[in-house]
């Protein structure tokens, strides 16, 4: 049951990621993968909020955990950073900003709920 809830919610997360990154990337020209950054940061905030909220057992909490799991992505972040040419400043910046932004967003989520 929880396996199905997590997986189906992850599929919804993937679709939201696809639509949001596509929308963002079509509207700016910086060359930075801002779309992936935005989903990863908002998803970290979202999962922080869910995990900071104490009742884990509900289907709603499971669905939210599954959603943010599928909504955020690590592999695309790695590939996009690699594509920016390591060890260039741009690539290191893309890694560092997402890493620290993600940790701060997750921390904010935990703190808002505790």
């Amino acid at each position, binding site marked *: 049951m929880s*396996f199905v809830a*997590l*997986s*189906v*919610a*992850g*599929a*919804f*997360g*993937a*679709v939201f*990621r*696809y*639509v949001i990154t596509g929308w963002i990337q079509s509207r700016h020209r910086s060359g930075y993968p801002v779309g992936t950054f935005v989903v*990863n940061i908002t*998803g*970290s905030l*979202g*999962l*922080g909020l869910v*995990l900071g909220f104490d009742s884990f057992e509900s289907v709603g909490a499971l669905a939210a955990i*599954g959603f*943010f*799991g*599928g*909504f*955020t*992505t*690590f*592999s*695309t*972040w*790695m*590939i996009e*950073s*690699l594509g920016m040419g*390591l060890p260039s400043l741009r690539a290191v910046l893309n*890694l560092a900003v*997402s*890493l620290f932004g*993600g*940790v701060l*967003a*997750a*921390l904010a*989520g*935990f703190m808002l709920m505790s």
Partner: protein
Amino acid sequence: MRHPVLSSRRLRSVAAVAGGGLVGSAARTAVGLMIPAMEGGFPASVIVVNLLGSFLLGLFLARWERATGGATSLRFWAIGVLGSFTTFSAFSTDIVELLAADRVLAGVGYVGVSLLGGLALARVGRRIGVVVR
């Protein structure tokens, strides 16, 4: 309406991502069930999915570029399956939980293994995809 929001083409691309996302999320959940958290709650299963997924995405993209694969296979495999198999939100919340538990060394190790391993494996995957026929 020349550009309807819900054209059949758009529905097809969303369906490819959704199908891939279902497979990738189910696979990540399965890995999570198979690999329990290590002693002290070190998030081993997240490391496994993120490193394996980075390797496979590098491999897939190199093959896909060479074969000039279609948009549907890119949406299903790269954005859907491998995008969802790996996860960033668990990575960042794990770091916060390790640091909050005063396990700074474990947190630094987790970040180091994930980032250096993810980049190295994505690169190795790409190389293999370019070289191997």
